[in-house]
């Protein structure tokens, strides 16, 4: 199998190498991809959408359909993870809940969950495979979280003028939640962004995106033509398109954030969303 694989890969490589002559040179100005629609995007973006960042205007406006279904794919990936991994019924195995007495370090094993005050100084719930953790690492990671989130919001809101947008900002937001999960535990993430809320947020993001398109249809424009919102905002069509792009980017960010956090929670805890990394 290995030898056959190597032969196949080398064959594919030889085929690729043979086609290299057909590809454009590095930095060619007249290459095929740069001749058809791309000049139209570059020349029209500023006048038609008031968006200096061409990537954002192409992503959310000119190719809005494509991005809508990409967002749906991300949402569906999260949903498939949920349905593949989530443990839906209680296992017959008796569950044990561990509580650590902070001042003495004594660990109590309980057969039923007990209530512990959120910032209790005496007891804390711990995972079965708990090991003492470095306070410096944990504090510094939690210290970074708000800064990551503020930067993520900046990336989403400023996507029209600088590199950024819904996908990047959503990934940053998800990274902040995953950092909490890595430095503290999964239950903290669960208390910040509960599983149910995350899935609702992911669905809401897709709904915001397609809803923006549908409302444009109702207003008399084409599907996903945000120019139809011009009377509502009281501005010209290009400025309305810039607003529409922002709304759509927020929907994308919600979906990406919630989906990636959900995937992390499920994969790291083997579908129980109780104890994990």
């Amino acid at each position: 199998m290995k030898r056959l694989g190597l032969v196949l890969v080398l064959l594919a490589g030889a085929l690729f190498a043979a086609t290299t002559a057909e590809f454009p040179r590095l930095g060619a100005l007249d290459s095929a991809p740069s001749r058809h629609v791309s000049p139209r995007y570059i020349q029209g973006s500023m006048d038609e959408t008031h968006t200096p960042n061409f990537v954002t205007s192409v992503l959310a406006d000119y190719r809005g359909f494509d991005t809508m279904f990409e967002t749906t794919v991300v949402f569906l990936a999260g949903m498939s993870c949920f349905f593949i991994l989530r443990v839906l019924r209680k296992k017959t195995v008796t569950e044990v809940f561990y509580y650590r007495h902070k001042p003495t370090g004594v660990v109590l094993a309980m057969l039923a969950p007990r209530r512990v005050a959120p910032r209790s100084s005496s007891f804390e719930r711990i995972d079965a495979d708990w090991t003492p953790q470095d306070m410096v690492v944990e504090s510094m990671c939690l210290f970074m979280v708000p800064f990551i989130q503020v930067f993520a919001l900046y990336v989403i809101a400023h996507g029209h003028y600088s590199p950024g947008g819904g996908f990047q900002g959503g990934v940053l937001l998800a990274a902040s939640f995953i950092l909490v999960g890595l430095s503290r535990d999964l239950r903290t993430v669960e208390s910040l962004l509960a599983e149910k809320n995350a899935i609702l947020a992911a669905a809401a993001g897709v709904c915001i995106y397609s809803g923006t398109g549908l409302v444009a249809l109702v207003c008399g424009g084409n599907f996903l033509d945000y120019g139809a919102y011009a009377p509502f905002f009281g501005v010209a069509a290009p400025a309305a398109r810039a607003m529409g792009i922002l709304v759509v980017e927020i929907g994308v960010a919600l979906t990406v954030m919630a989906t990636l956090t959900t995937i992390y929670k499920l994969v790291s805890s083997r579908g129980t969303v109780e104890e994990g990394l």
Partner: protein
Amino acid sequence: MHGLLAEFGDKFHYYAYFAIMMIGLYAMIAKTNLLKKCIGLGIFQTAIMLFYVSIGAKQGATIPIVDPALGTADPALYANPLPQVLMLTAIVVSVATLGVALALVQNLHRDHGSIEEDEILQRLRGQ
């Protein structure tokens, strides 16, 4: 000979992408560990992303954001935004699909106690 070298010099980056692509393809075909197959998939996707973005590059062009000093009359002054848009979504989708792959691998490990492809196949034949 000189022409051939000049031709190669302008297209050498494609050979690098093909090499990365072949590494990923080999990992997907030949490795029996399912996690290593997932990593191979990631390497393969990386090669394709590099390939797309390199096609959008233009000699002497700046990033695809309007520079008031340059204006928008001449498209040759800005890199092609289209491949960047396509790869932007592809990166996030690849992360999400990798999550699905990991979920499937985890389920296989739960059911068969192994993530080695040949061991799982052996177990399935033995039953």
